[in-house]
């Protein structure tokens, strides 16, 4: 059967979108990969390595590898600062209108020398690399931070740019794309821990989220906190913050694993550190995790019971009030640092995108699937889902889901009738 070699639009350059785009490109398909931020890679690319004396299998490096491969693939065209404005058409013949905000830096001319950032007077710098790893390989001017855009007369970056890459006059661009299929890979939003006010996030500087902790390790290489003092010795992780509660009827799938891996990393770097993990049900499944967990049991304290309140003590530490279920009593323990294992929530723009694309949302607010038998297909033929925008997943599952979405897209584009279902499945 001849493959109708139509192009595919992938919305979102997180690990799932990247995985989809890469597999499609390798199969000979031309891919447009659009990303709403200035940097590609999404959350996965921003996490830290959690290896101790061996790999912790968090897969962040595997995500980075795929990202690097996608960035140089000739069949993938990446458009940053871009969102879908309008969609019409059908499978095999979609017309998409993309709005691309300006980076004010011409990516064809930027050599990422950094001279512009050196001379930028704004605090924080208004012109900077796309991301820490600078992917894509270019700088970007943030209109919101730039003094010139606030009315001041400043053109230091432009006058110092050796390749004339900076153009203040660049306007948003409109792209009209014709594609055969669309893969939605818009990722997730991190649960806002301030919504659980009693846990102290946003009030006490020593209460962090799991994402904050990842960023600290990524930036500093060790548990360096902004609050003065030595490295924290007594650390608590609180699981299920924004998962398995009244508003979230699902498990976020990643938190137990990342908490245990981060806990292990903390203890590896600081053998004196004591870590306690407060949980409801500990999620320890998955390839390669069982052994890891066995090794941790001796050194991490696991307490069944989610804390209800975190307060600051007079000495600046944190007092955590919880019910120790196995002991059957309420306790108040003191910690130097409390990490809230925040969950995966639907992305902020899902309503807009759902409306524009005509796809449904499920009860939890993630994009809905057509049937339980295939978690990539939406109610619209030719529009597929990849990754956490369909529901919480860890990095390996996001990759698998992205590649699966590519598979479904290719099958749809070959005119295959995938509506034939020869089995039923409950979950």
């Amino acid at each position: 059967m001849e493959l109708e070699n139509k192009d595919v639009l992938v919305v979102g350059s997180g690990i799932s979108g990247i995985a989809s785009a890469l597999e499609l490109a390798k199969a000979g398909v031309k891919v447009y990969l659009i990303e709403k931020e200035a940097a590609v890679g999404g959350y996965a690319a921003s996490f830290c390595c959690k290896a101790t004396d061996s790999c912790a299998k968090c897969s962040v490096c595997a995500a980075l590898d795929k990202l690097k491969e996608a960035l140089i693939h000739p069949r993938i065209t990446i458009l940053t600062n871009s969102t879908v404005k309008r969609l019409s058409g059908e499978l095999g013949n979609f017309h998409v209108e993309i709005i691309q905000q300006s980076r004010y830096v011409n990516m064809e001319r930027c050599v990422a020398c950094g001279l512009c950032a050196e001379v930028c007077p704004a605090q924080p710098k208004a012109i900077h690399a796309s991301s820490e790893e600078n992917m894509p390989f270019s700088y970007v001017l943030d209109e919101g931070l730039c003094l010139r855009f606030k009315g001041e007369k400043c053109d230091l970056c432009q006058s110092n740019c050796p390749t004339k890459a900076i153009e203040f006059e660049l306007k948003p661009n409109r792209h009209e794309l014709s594609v055969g299929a669309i893969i939605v890979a818009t990722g997730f939003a991190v649960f806002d821990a301030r919504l659980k006010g009693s846990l102290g996030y946003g009030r006490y500087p020593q209460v962090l989220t799991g994402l904050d902790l990842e960023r600290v390790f990524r930036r500093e290489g060790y548990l360096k906190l902004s609050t003065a003092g030595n490295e924290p010795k007594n650390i608590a992780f609180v699981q299920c913050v924004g998962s398995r509660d009244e508003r979230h009827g699902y498990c976020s799938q990643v938190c137990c694993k990342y908490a245990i891996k981060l806990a292990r990393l903390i203890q590896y770097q600081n053998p004196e550190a004591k870590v306690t993990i407060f949980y409801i049900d500990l999620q320890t499944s998955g390839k390669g995790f069982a052994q890891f967990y066995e090794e941790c049991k001796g050194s991490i304290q696991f307490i069944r019971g989610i804390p209800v309140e975190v307060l600051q003590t007079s000495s600046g530490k944190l007092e955590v009030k919880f019910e120790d279920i196995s002991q059957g009593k309420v306790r108040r323990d003191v910690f130097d640092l409390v990490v809230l294992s925040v969950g995966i929530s639907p992305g902020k723009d899902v309503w807009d995108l759902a409306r524009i694309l005509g796809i449904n949302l499920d009860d939890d607010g993630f994009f809905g699937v057509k049937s339980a038998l295939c978690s990539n297909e939406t109610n619209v033929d030719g529009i597929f889902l990849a990754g956490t925008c369909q529901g919480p997943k860890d990095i390996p599952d996001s990759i698998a889901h992205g590649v699966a979405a590519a598979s479904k897209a290719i099958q749809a584009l070959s005119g295959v009738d995938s509506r034939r279902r020869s089995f039923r499945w409950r979950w």
Partner: protein
Amino acid sequence: MEKEIGIFLCNCGGGIKNIDFDAVREKLVQISDVAFVAVSSALCLEEGKGTIVSTIKDKGVEKVVIAACSPEFTEHTFGEVLEKAGLNRHLLAMANVREQCAWAHQGDVTKKAIQLIKMAVNRARLLQPVQKKELPINKDVLVIGGGFSGLNIALQLSRLGLRATVLEKEAVLGARLGEAESFSSCDMGPMISEVESDDNIEVLTSAQLVRIEGNVGNFSVRIQKAGEEIPRKYGAIVVATGYRTQLMASSEPDSGGKILSQAELCRMLAAQSLEKQPRTVGFIFDFADENSRFPTLATLDNALAAKEKWDSEVYVFCKSVKVDSKGAEKLYREARARGIVFLKCETPPKVLAKNGRVEIQAQDILMGEDTVFACDVLVAEQQILPAEDADILSSLLNVGRDSKGFYQDENVHLYPVALERKGIFVVGGCRGDLDGGRVLSDISSAVMSIYELLSPGKIVVDSEKVKANPQKCVACLTCFRVCPHSAIQLMRAENEKEVAQVADAACDACGICAAICPAKAISFEGYTDEQIVAQIEALGTS
């Protein structure tokens, strides 16, 4: 000496301030076989690339050194530029004078830059071209295992126009059909009919793989069926051999009470009429093996079915419910809402058979003391194990397994469905991670990987980039045994001795063989011993 090396220096738009490029240039032009040293300000931009092409053509150099930013991204770009200038892309050596020199140190780094470039020059001098070659490949796929995953893959491949042979060691497809562990799980009948009537799919039952040779795109296998060996050729292979379960009934001998597996309970649930419907059903899981997504989901499913069909009292004993799958939490809440009781215990419950019933003595964390529950039937914990012949088949295919014996090493770079050998994939329960949603994703992933591999009908390879010299090879088999990708085979040319040969299609260019060969018979172009040592030669205080 021929002036065959050309050097391009890039000051990154003038952004590199702590290298004196003129001083660098002065030192480098003194090297006798360097034809020119050109300083540029933006080699990666279109005009910079244009300059490289015209300068190479002008000066007629054979090898190129580019001192600029990291080769991580630009090596690819500059390789293309070399090709435009008529040179093989492998005749390029890069010196990282930006990320690993100018940006990494404070103060003047001119001396280090000079040395880094000299290292690259020494390497460039010895570089040889590597050509691309197209190899024809077989587009058929061998699917080992005729269960849910195997049949599903064969069907999806067929839809994409690829032919598959489903190899099943039992006499029928879907042999575990009667072993379904979850009440509402797959009814495979329709899928089996579809497979049997699909022209793109060949089914061989009571058949086993006994021999495999060759590499990705060109596997030669021998299948044993009915006492005969059938030779076949395939481009890719999928392992979908499933899993086994073993009941861990750690209890006293069954004196009339019923200790069952999930599958046995399912059969009871499916039965039209039962002599006696169990009034109380117990489930135990998650103690011996905490990797229990599938047991959780099967338990929830079967517990709800027992409630619905028999209106039994249901008690579930576990450490933690594993709800990290889509829909699992909802199922768990539904189960609790229907009155199914979950007892979370830190230690495994004791199971005793007494008076025709099964007694479970457990210490639930909420109650805090030992309590005894009497059930009519108990679904005891089951161990999920690799398929019986996993050790034999994995040896035959020369692929690794994880610490529990399931296929696929626990190496993140292989996830989701790849193995160390290109062209061989693994899906489904035989891989270990086995809830329904993830298995379906794995299946589609494997289909995609196979499609992109086989659909072009050919593989483009770097020809002889890693090569065993037949004159030096003594066929000691060290490289053969050590290659993680099984890319080395023994070949015997006519009237010649048997020697090692690297299969270009399977080689992943790691160089482990080149390092380990005791006769130094294997060369790895770009990283030969001479090319590595030449870089070392440029060191020493100068």
